[in-house]
C-alpha cells in the first residue's frame, strides 16, 4: 500500500529493537537506579555519619564520606552511651530485645497459625464473626488499648513481667498474622485436607504433618513481620517493662534523647543502625521468600 519499492523489499520492516542500550532500557534502569538511590540515601547517611567524628559532622556536609573513619561512635553506642546512671549503651537492651522477641515471635506465630488453620479448614458457627472482630483489632491504635491492657495485665498478675509483654505482643500480632495464615491455608487445595482426613489424621495431625511442612513461605513472612514489629516496638516495651528489661528501642530512645550538650549525631546514627540490624539481616536473608509468601498470603483472598 505504501511505497511499492519499500514494501517489496525483502528486508524486515521496522528495526530490530531491544538491544541492551535501547531507549526503553535506559529509561527503565535509569528510573530504577534513581529511585534506588533515593531509598539508599538515608542508609548511606546513617553509615557515613556513624563513621565520622563530631568535629567533622559540625562541618555540616552529611553526604560527604568520612575523611577519617572512626569506629568510636559504634563502640560508644554499643557499650558506653549513658542514660541517667547506666552507661552501658545498647548492649544490655540487645539481649533484652532478644529475650522479648524470640518468645513473642514463636508464641504469636504458633497461635496465629493454628487460628488461621482452624479458620480456613475447620470453620464452625461464628468463627467468621470472631475473625472479623480480630481484624477490627488490627486497626485499633495501640495507644487506645494501653489502658485496658494495663488493667487486664494487672488483673491476671502479669504486669511488668516479661511474660506479660510477650502476651501483649502475641495479642497485637494476632490479627494480621491470622489473616495471613488463614488466606494461605485457604489457598492450599482442599482435597489435600480431605485426603488427610480420610487417612485418619485429626485436627492436630493434619496441622503438623500436612499443613506445617507446606507453609515455609508464609512462615517466613510471619517471622519477618513479627521480628520487625516486635524488635522495633517502643511503646509496649517502655510501658510494660522495667529498666533492667528494657528492650533495645527504649535504650535507643534514651540514648538519642539523653542529650548531653550537643547532640552526638554519630553515636545516634550508630545506635540507630545497630538497633535496626537484626530485622535488616533477617530481611536480607529471606527477602525472596518474603515476596513469595506475600503473594500467597496477602493477595489471594
Amino acid at each position, binding site marked *: 500500500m505504501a511505497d511499492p519499492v519499500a514494501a517489496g523489499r525483502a528486508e524486515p520492516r521496522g528495526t530490530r529493537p531491544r538491544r541492551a542500550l535501547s531507549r526503553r532500557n535506559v529509561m527503565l534502569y535509569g528510573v530504577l537506579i534513581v529511585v534506588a538511590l533515593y531509598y539508599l540515601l538515608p542508609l548511606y547517611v546513617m553509615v557515613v555519619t556513624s563513621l565520622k567524628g563530631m568535629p567533622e559532622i559540625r562541618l555540616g556536609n552529611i553526604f560527604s564520606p568520612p575523611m577519617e573513619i572512626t569506629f568510636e561512635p559504634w563502640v560508644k553506642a554499643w557499650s558506653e552511651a549513658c542514660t541517667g546512671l547506666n552507661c552501658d549503651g545498647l548492649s544490655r537492651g540487645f539481649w533484652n530485645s532478644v529475650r522479648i522477641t524470640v518468645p513473642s515471635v514463636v508464641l504469636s506465630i504458633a497461635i496465629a497459625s493454628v487460628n488461621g488453620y482452624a479458620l480456613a479448614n475447620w470453620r464452625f458457627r461464628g468463627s467468621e464473626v470472631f475473625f472479623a472482630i480480630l481484624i477490627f483489632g488490627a486497626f485499633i491504635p495501640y495507644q487506645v488499648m494501653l489502658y485496658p491492657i494495663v488493667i487486664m495485665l494487672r488483673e491476671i498478675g502479669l504486669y511488668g513481667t516479661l511474660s506479660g509483654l510477650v502476651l501483649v505482643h502475641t495479642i497485637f500480632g494476632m490479627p494480621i498474622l491470622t489473616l495471613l495464615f488463614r488466606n494461605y491455608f485457604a489457598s492450599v*487445595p482442599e*482435597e*489435600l485436607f*480431605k*485426603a*488427610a*482426613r*480420610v*487417612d*485418619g*489424621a485429626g485436627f492436630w*495431625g493434619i496441622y503438623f*504433618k*500436612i499443613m506445617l*511442612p*507446606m507453609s515455609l513461605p508464609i512462615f517466613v513472612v510471619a517471622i519477618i513481620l513479627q521480628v520487625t514489629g516486635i524488635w522495633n516496638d517502643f511503646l509496649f516495651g517502655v510501658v510494660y517493662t522495667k529498666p533492667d528489661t528494657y528492650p533495645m528501642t527504649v535504650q535507643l530512645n534514651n540514648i538519642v534523647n539523653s542529650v548531653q550538650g550537643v547532640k552526638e549525631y554519630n553515636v545516634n546514627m550508630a545506635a540507630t543502625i545497630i538497633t535496626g540490624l537484626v530485622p535488616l539481616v533477617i530481611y536480607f536473608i529471606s527477602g525472596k521468600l518474603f515476596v513469595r509468601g506475600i503473594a500467597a498470603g496477602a493477595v489471594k483472598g
Partner: protein
Amino acid sequence: MNQMTNPAATSVAVKDLRLAYGSLTILDDLSLDIGEGEFIVLLGPSGCGKSTLLNCIAGLLDITDGQIWIKGRNVTWEEPKDRGIGMVFQSYALYPQMTVRGNLAFGLKNAGLPRGEIDKRIARAAEILQIQPLLDRKPAALSGGQRQRVAIGRALVRDVDVFLFDEPLSNLDAKLRSELRVEIKRLHQQLRNTMIYVTHDQIEALTLADRIAVMRGGIIQQLADPKTIYNKPANLFVAGFIGSPAMTFLKGQIGERDGVRTFEAGGSTIALDQYRGEVPARGTAVILGVRPEHVAAGHVAAGHGAAGHGAAGHGAAGHGATGAGGAAAKVEIDEPMGSDSLLWLRFAGQALSARAPAEHGFKAGDAVSLGFDISKASLFDTETEQRL
C-alpha cells in the same frame, strides 16, 4: 465382622440423603444402593452435586438429613477414617513434602499399624500398581500418571471395602486418560472392591461402569447399566448428555401413513414401526432423538437402498434402516475424526448429525438421502421430556 442389617449384597446405601448449605439445598432426598463389588459411576455436568454426594459418603461433609450405610453399618456420624473407605482425588492431593512411601504410610501410621504390616501393605500396593521404583521420590518428581497411581495406592494400602474416586482423570491429557482408564478397569477386575467413581466425562462412565447414575441438579436422573443408559435414556437430558458425538434431536409430531405411525417434521416423515417403545397417539408433539451412528447418509440418486449400503457402514446398515421418504438433507459440515467422519446435516430445517466412514466422499453442500435405524432411536415427550 460387621453385623448386617441390610441385604448382604449391598455395600453402600444412601438413604434419603439431604444436604444443604444454609438455605441452599444441594442434594434433596437422594437414595442409592450400591452392590458388593459394583463399579458405580456418578455422571453429570459440573455443579450437579457429584462431589458433594461422594463427600457425604466419605464423611467429609456433615449431612443435613438422612443416613449412610456402608457394609451394613450405619456410619452416618462416623469419622471418615472409620468408614472403611479410600478416596482418590482429582488433583491427587498427594502430600507434597512426603515421599511416595510416606504418602502411602501416612494413613497406616495414623491407624497405629505396626511397621512390618505397613511395609508389607506398601509392598503389595506398589506391586499391584507397579510403582516400586518410585517409592522414594517426592510427588513433584512424578509424572501425572505416576501421581495418579500413587493416589490410588494410598487408598489401596488402607485395605478398604469401598473406593471413592473424584474425577481422578480429569487433569490428564487425553492419551494418558485413556491409558489410565484401562488400568483402573483392570484394577477393579483384580480387586473386586466396590468403587464409586465421579466423572463428567461420559466416555469414562460408559467404559468403566457396571451401573451409571446420571445426575443433574442434585437429582439422579437415571440409574442403570451403560447399555441401557446409552440405548434407552430415561429422558432428554440423559440422552443428550451420553454419547459422543452426541445424539441429535428433531422436533416434530406423530403422524400416520398406511396404518403405520410416523414421525413428521417439516414435510418429511419417518416410519416408526420399528420403534421399541410406546408410540403415542397421532398428533402428539414429540422429540425424536437419533444417534449419529444410527443415521445413514446415501447419495440422493441411489435412493434409499443405496443409503444403506453405500455410505453407512455402521449399525444403520446392518439392521433394517427406515428411509426418510427420500427427503433430501444437505451436508453442512464434514468433521473427519480419523476412523470415521461426522456429517452435520440439515434435515427438515433442523440440524442432524450422521456418522459416516472416513471415505464417504460427501462435500459440504451436497444433498444426501437418509436412512434411520428407528429401533435404536428414542422418542421423548415434548412436555415432560421423558422417554416414551
